[in-house]
């Protein structure tokens, strides 16, 4: 059986500088897979390439059995690959409910969309309270909730989350991480990029450590969490 997402020898370059230097990994349906690593390791570049915002310079990506190479971003969403970008990128001057509706831009089932908006509100009740408010007025953590809720609105087969805990207070970070755990328990397939390696590895089935454009270490979340070099480099232990 083939995985939902298969990445083979993916390369991405900005001009002459190669940011991703041939990485391979896969995500099985129902799994949570995490990419960890320092700034500049190529994690965000990898996600932006998978969602079509960047063009790969080499390698193969197949999603749900179809090759993705050369697809523009707006067609990749249609295949069921949602991307909640780094820095949240909610639409600041649109209301919360309008942001959620844009997440369902390609859907035509009105009743289903309303139902999923309710689900997003159940997941993040604060969004219901503020549904008519401009999204730019939300706090960072609330914006992150909105970005995740919006990404879920297209009923993705794979949800890509880029640094969902970045810049958040410890309490908000915990809330976001517990939401990801909840999504996992509902069977959502997730590709998670995180700087908070501890939190990411504790909930991931599979983890990959990236360094300057390469995957240098792979294993189960559990395994990486106890790996000595990972502990030293990313979990702040001597």
């Amino acid at each position, binding site marked *: 059986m083939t995985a939902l997402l298969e990445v083979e020898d993916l390369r991405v370059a900005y001009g002459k500088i190669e940011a991703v230097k041939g990485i391979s990994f896969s995500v099985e349906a129902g799994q949570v897979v995490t990419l960890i690593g320092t700034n500049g390791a190529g994690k965000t570049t990898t996600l932006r390439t998978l969602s079509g915002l960047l063009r790969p310079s080499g390698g193969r990506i197949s999603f749900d059995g179809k090759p993705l190479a050369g697809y523009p971003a707006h067609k990749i*969403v249609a295949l069921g690959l949602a991307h909640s970008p780094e820095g949240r990128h909610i*639409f600041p001057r649109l209301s919360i409910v309008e942001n959620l509706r844009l997440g369902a831009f390609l859907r035509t089932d009105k009743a289903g969309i309303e139902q999923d908006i309710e689900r997003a509100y159940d997941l993040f009740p604060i969004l219901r309270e503020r549904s008519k408010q401009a999204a730019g007025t939300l706090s*960072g953590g609330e914006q992150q909730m909105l970005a995740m809720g919006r990404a879920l609105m297209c009923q993705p087969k794979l949800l890509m989350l880029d640094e969902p805990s970045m810049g958040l207070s410890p309490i908000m970070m915990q809330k976001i991480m517990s939401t990801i755990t909840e999504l996992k328990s509902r069977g959502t397939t997730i590709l998670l990029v995180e700087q908070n390696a501890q939190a990411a590895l504790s909930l991931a089935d599979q983890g990959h450590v990236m360094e300057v454009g390469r995957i240098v270490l792979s294993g189960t979340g559990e395994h990486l969490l106890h790996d000595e070099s990972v502990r030293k480099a990313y979990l702040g232990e001597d």
Partner: protein
Amino acid sequence: MNELPQQLANGLALGALYGLIAIGYTMVYGIVQLINFAHGEIFMIGGFGALTTYIGLPSGISLFVAIPLMIIGGAIASVGVAVLAERFAYRPLRGAPRLAPLITAIGLSIVLQQLVWGWYPDAKKARSFPEFTGESFKILDNLIIQRADAFVLVLAPLCMLALGLFVSKSRNGRAMQATAQDPDTAKLMGINTDRIIVMAFAIGAAFAAIAAVVYGLDKGQIQFEMGFILGLKAFTAAVLGGIGNIYGAMVGGVVLGLAEALSIAYIEEIPGMQQLGGGAWANVWAFVLLIVVLLVRPQGLLGERVADRA
């Protein structure tokens, strides 16, 4: 006799014309941050498209039938040119430094003027345009509204209303707002942003064609260079109102139109300013107003201060 009502009406009609053209600058700027300096020529081409349509109609046709057809013909020409310009001149430069498309726009503006000058029959001098005939509307003793002015005063608000509804309520309109606010993220929602950009160019061009018909009906003639100064004024209106904001374009147009009309009528009555009044100075006062407004509100009347990205 108090001539203020008349001056206000003149200013409003002129402002509505500026506003209709300003929409094109503001929509394109709002989405791709490009000052489309060729938009004045898109307006001019709308006028020649309308004239061509009129010439093709049977003679003696009522203007009430002809005008809608002229607007359609003008819009086909202006939208066609705008869409081609976007596709072949601007799109290849997307992602290039901003100066490149700006210079392209200026070049394109010259090219379009020269094409009309060289290729359109008899366009080297002004071509006469059908004029509204018949009575003006006498509202008050001191307020008479010409038919062309009445036409734009009714049409411009209707166009704005339709555009406002389109942008805020329709699916494509929301996609347009999303693209304006964050193009990459809009793509992640499944929005084909290339199509939205073309749409912004097309809507602006259609509004410019309407404005060109209004202008031709009012002046009774059109010229290949008419887009230059009117384009500049409309661009000023867009900046005055807050570029990127569609209502700002109309508000800026009206404020500019009123400022011109009132300065023509009243500046020379101020003691010591006799030399600085009248039509010759209208443009000066219009730009003085622009400078004053931008000193106080750099983002324009309805513009939003662009917040730093979080």
